């Protein structure tokens, strides 16, 4: 039942990875493998567009952390764009909203202090 569609394009600031579907135990390893192959130059910004992500579990979180480490190792920036509210709540619980730059890309992304949801 879980499926994840991933597309990659190059923007001026760096690669943009768009995904839609479920980011979970079955699909996250695929994202993680793809991110490891991305070449980042210092100063570039890797953007992960989560606009179409309906579900993100701990495996998805692991993939995002791997992306973060990959970018930092290349001295590049990393940002999450268009994070859906449900995924944002998960990110807040695990504290990832503090280590990723968040691009609204939508109207419903104003951060809330209450991580409990």
């Amino acid at each position, binding site marked *: 039942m879980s499926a994840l569609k991933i597309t990659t394009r190059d923007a001026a600031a760096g690669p943009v990875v768009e995904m839609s579907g479920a980011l979970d*135990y079955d699909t996250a390893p695929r994202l993680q493998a793809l991110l*490891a192959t991305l070449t980042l130059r210092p100063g570039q910004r890797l953007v992960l567009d989560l606009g179409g992500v309906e579900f993100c579990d701990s495996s998805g979180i692991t993939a995002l952390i791997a992306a973060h480490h990959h970018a930092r190792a290349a001295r590049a920036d990393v940002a999450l764009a268009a994070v859906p509210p449900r995924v944002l709540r998960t990110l807040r619980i695990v504290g990832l909203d503090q280590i990723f730059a968040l691009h609204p890309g939508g109207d419903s992304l104003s951060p809330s202090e209450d*991580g409990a949801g």
Partner: protein
Amino acid sequence: MMCRTGRQPDPYEAGDEKSSSNAAFAALLEDSAEELYESAPCGYLSTLMDGTIAKINATLLGWLGTEREAVVGRKRFTDLLTVGGKLYHETHFAPLLRMQGEISGIALELKQADGGRIPVLVSSVIKRGDTGEPLLIRTTVFDARDRRAYEEELLRRRQAAEKARRQAEETRRQAEEARKQAEEARRQAEADRARLQDALAVLQQSLLPDTLPEVPGLETAAYYHTAHPDRLGGDFYDVFRIDGERFGFFLGDVCGKGPQAAALTSLTRYTLRAAALHDPDPVSVLTTLNKVLHERYAGSGDPRYCTAVFGTLEPGPGTGQVAVHLASGGHPPVITVRADGTAGFLPTPGGLLVGILPSARFTAATTVLGPGDVLLLYTDGITEARTGEDRTSLYGDEALLACVAGHAGKPPQAVVEALTGVLHGFGDGLDDDTALLALGVPAPDPQTRSIR
């Protein structure tokens, strides 16, 4: 013997009163005795007692492919035989014949002039003189080629049948052997699987406490749901004594599944325990764990981390209250269930996953549990269980809060049992391991007391 002849040279010339009618009968058949002898459907042979051929009929000469002149007076009977036949003649045939005066139906082989062989059946009788002295040997020879061929065919058929039977037997034996090997392999595989399951179960148990310790003035209850028996789970919890007054507790969730997750769980558990003995401040304990995990897994390329709530319990002497200090790293907020029927989250916002960065912020919170109050810790297996007919909705925080509020005032065991029922109700919607830990101060009303 049909062809046994009478006296030599011509049995039918014996003069008696029947001879005239015999002669008439022979005449009627237009067949002379001589012709009958020469062209009989069997071979005739008369030899002297030393075997020298004295007389031989045309039939036998034809079989041998030779001329009368080459044989009569020149060869002995044994000269007509193969080597094996000669031997048999010397050792059996001749002695028996001499002893008994006759012998019949002996299988021998004749040599043909062209080198061929003819299987024959040989019968002989000794003709004696008036005083009983042996005069000569009369011998009849039957062509046994057809019979031999028939026998050989029979033998060949029997050998073929025997060979087929042996092949069938061999095939059956091989099939049986293969079946036994397959059976043995299956049995071995099942034994291996059972052994592996046992090993996994023992490992799993080593990651979770068998029983929780007695904590004075407090009741405890815990539950662990394993989603996949063959995937070592990544949730963990424990309660342990820190010193004379305080107890420590923790509950968390490591990333991943399987042996690597189990190794991470083990490292996490013992690091938390050791760190608490050194400095029980919850933020300090999680900071130590963060350093340990980051040092251990940084640079491995595969992020390894956990979420955790760590806390201390300090019963107030004589007050019936327990002070709780806790901190969270990336873990969902714990729930306080109050004796007055309310339930709420104890927020710990901003605490980061433990182990992903060299230094991390953890968020502390405190509360006090009075009589009948319960502190509930859980992993997100329950809140992220998929519900609804199409399994697209999540159980969620609010449903969890409402459920436990319905059991406010009850002891920890009752709250855990209620949630266990909820977990079972998810069926296949519950895809993740789930840990529950409830800590409560006994209510004053003995009716609500429950011994764990």
